[in-house]
């Protein structure tokens, strides 16, 4: 199938990417009561799926147009520049992480935690960890998403080239890679041992699927999505996933899950994007598309603007979120970690994210006004925010 390059700006993408960034931030604070509102507690998939899917969608939207108009080399160069920016952001976050290790290791002594402190000393070998971090092999807590994003973007010029010729071939190839990854256990090694927490060969499926949707796939799926059968299937699956997750929270109910079902279903593998997770995301997406149209009025309301703004500057806000989660945990342990503090820090974090996104928008507007007028049609860069 030939791709369809649309020029419509879809604010839903920005809104849901912004919300996903908030949820990722809330989930990254350990033992945060507010994280009980996030979707990972009510089904198989979580905000990561939303983030990667929308990132694939917007990448195809922005760079697909560029590749169509200016060719493979120019668009490819822009994609690689973006990958480089994300790499730099990742290393910046790593520097903050190393600083935290040194702070904790030099300020904390307790005979109870000899084992944990030994562990810190192991991480506190900058001559090794820094090299491994630069190679993207050492990825500290909560810093797994950006390396995944980098690999996805490095592969994206080729993927996009195929997508622009035949979207179906690209999607089939992506599914095939996903299946082969499951069959042969492909992944990238990590330091000190193990493999990438987000296996790029599996997670590329969501990214490419997002890109496929952006290039006409969504239109082709529209009739199926309008069908009540799809709707009820999605609802049934979401209810099923919700019931299963309930048994995680209330272990006493775990016996209600039939043995054969448990054996077939568990463990639900996040590293390799378990089919159950992917299906859960599809069900959520189907419901969302069904009930929220692109001209849904609240998208213009000022109440949705904070999330939309965050979604439009996803890289900056994502990095900020990782840092804020670090900082929030630090304050919770250092000062007070009660319920009130958890709520306050969660709210404050989101406010800082919104404030920063507003500032970045303002900055870009001022820069644009002060310099030369933009040469590209504004829709190309604004629609769906950044890639």
């Amino acid at each position: 199938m030939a791709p369809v390059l649309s020029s419509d700006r879809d604010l839903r993408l920005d809104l849901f990417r912004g919300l996903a960034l908030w949820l990722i931030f809330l989930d990254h604070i350990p033992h945060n009561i507010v994280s009980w509102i996030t979707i990972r507690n009510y089904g198989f998939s979580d905000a990561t799926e939303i983030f990667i899917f929308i990132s694939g969608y917007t990448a195809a939207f922005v760079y697909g147009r560029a590749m169509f108009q200016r060719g493979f080399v120019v668009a490819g160069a822009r994609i690689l520049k973006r990958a480089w920016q994300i790499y730099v952001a990742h290393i910046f976050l790593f520097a903050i992480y190393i600083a935290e290790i040194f702070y904790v290791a030099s300020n904390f002594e307790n005979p109870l935690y000899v084992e944990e402190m030994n562990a810190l000393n192991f991480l506190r070998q900058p001559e090794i960890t820094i090299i491994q971090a630069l190679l993207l092999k050492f990825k500290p807590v909560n810093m797994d998403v950006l390396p995944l994003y980098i690999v996805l973007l490095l592969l994206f010029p080729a993927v996009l080239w195929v997508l622009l010729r035949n979207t179906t071939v690209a999607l089939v190839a992506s599914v095939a890679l996903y299946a082969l990854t499951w069959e042969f256990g492909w992944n990238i090694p990590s330091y000190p041992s193990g493999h990438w927490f987000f296996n790029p060969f599996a997670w590329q499926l969501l990214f490419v699927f997002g890109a496929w949707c952006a290039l006409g796939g969504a239109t082709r799926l529209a009739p199926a999505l309008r069908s009540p059968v799809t709707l009820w299937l999605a609802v049934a699956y979401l209810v099923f996933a919700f019931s299963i997750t309930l048994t995680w929270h209330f272990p006493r109910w775990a016996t209600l899950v039939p043995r054969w079902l448990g054996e077939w279903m568990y463990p639900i593998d996040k590293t390799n994007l378990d089919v159950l997770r992917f299906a859960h995301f599809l069900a959520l997406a189907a419901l969302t598309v069904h009930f929220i149209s692109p001209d849904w009025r609240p998208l213009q309301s000022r109440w949705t603007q904070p999330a939309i703004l965050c979604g439009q500057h996803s890289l900056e806000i994502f990095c900020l979120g990782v840092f804020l989660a670090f900082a929030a945990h630090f304050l919770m342990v250092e000062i007070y970690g009660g319920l009130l503090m958890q709520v306050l820090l969660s709210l404050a974090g989101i406010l800082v994210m919104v404030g920063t996104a507003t500032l970045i928008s303002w900055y870009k507007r001022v820069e644009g006004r002060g310099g030369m007028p933009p040469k590209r049609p504004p829709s190309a860069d604004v629609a769906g925010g950044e890639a």
Partner: protein
Amino acid sequence: MRTWIAVGRAVAFCAMVLCSAGARAESAAECAVPGYLLFGDSFIERATAAVRKDKTLKIAVLGGSSSKLPGPEGASFAYPARLEAALKRRLPQLAVTVVARTKRRQSAAEAAENITKLLLDEKPSLVVWQTGTNDAVRGTDPAAFRNTLSDGIETLQAGGADVILMNMQYSPRTESIVAVDAYADAMRWVAREREVPMFDRLAIMRYWYDSGVFNLYAATKDLGMATRVHNCIAHALASLIIDAARLQPQEEGAPAR
């Protein structure tokens, strides 16, 4: 969900207060653990059989540094020694021994290599396998970690020993640096699959921290708090063993010293 835990905790706390009002003042009352965090549905039949047959309970602790305490007196304050004392007190009719086979920075796979030797040397009827921290630091593949545990449990059971898994300590200072949750989940999962009891040290210590029993955040060189924490772990672990082995303990707090 959190609110339900909070409600549960409130109920458990009231129950604790009511119970302890009648009971004699006991050092472990301060760190009582609600039943839902401690007890499960898995039995340790091999240990029960050994108790019935020989009136002995031979326990081996297979673990890392968090099963020890530093210093010359450390071993006598750490939970394996305290567990022996607690079990002897509560099961005076039995010959209870607890040996600790601990090694620094030991991963689950490295511990598993020592299982055969442990079975030969000590012939335990119960092994408390404490692990998780070092695998979390090294980022072992969770699937490989699960398989190691599962195979290790099989070897231990084939060698006549029951197993209780014990996961990592709750450490508020390091929890944003070392992600232990995936490994704690893996251990819970293996325990459920293999139907062995799980001493959820992570959840129990977190419960103590949340309810203000221990300030696990404090920086100190003093062994005082560490000793009390280990004593409480030993006490709770003894209750779990007695429950899972279906033994009749002496009344808690009975004169035994």
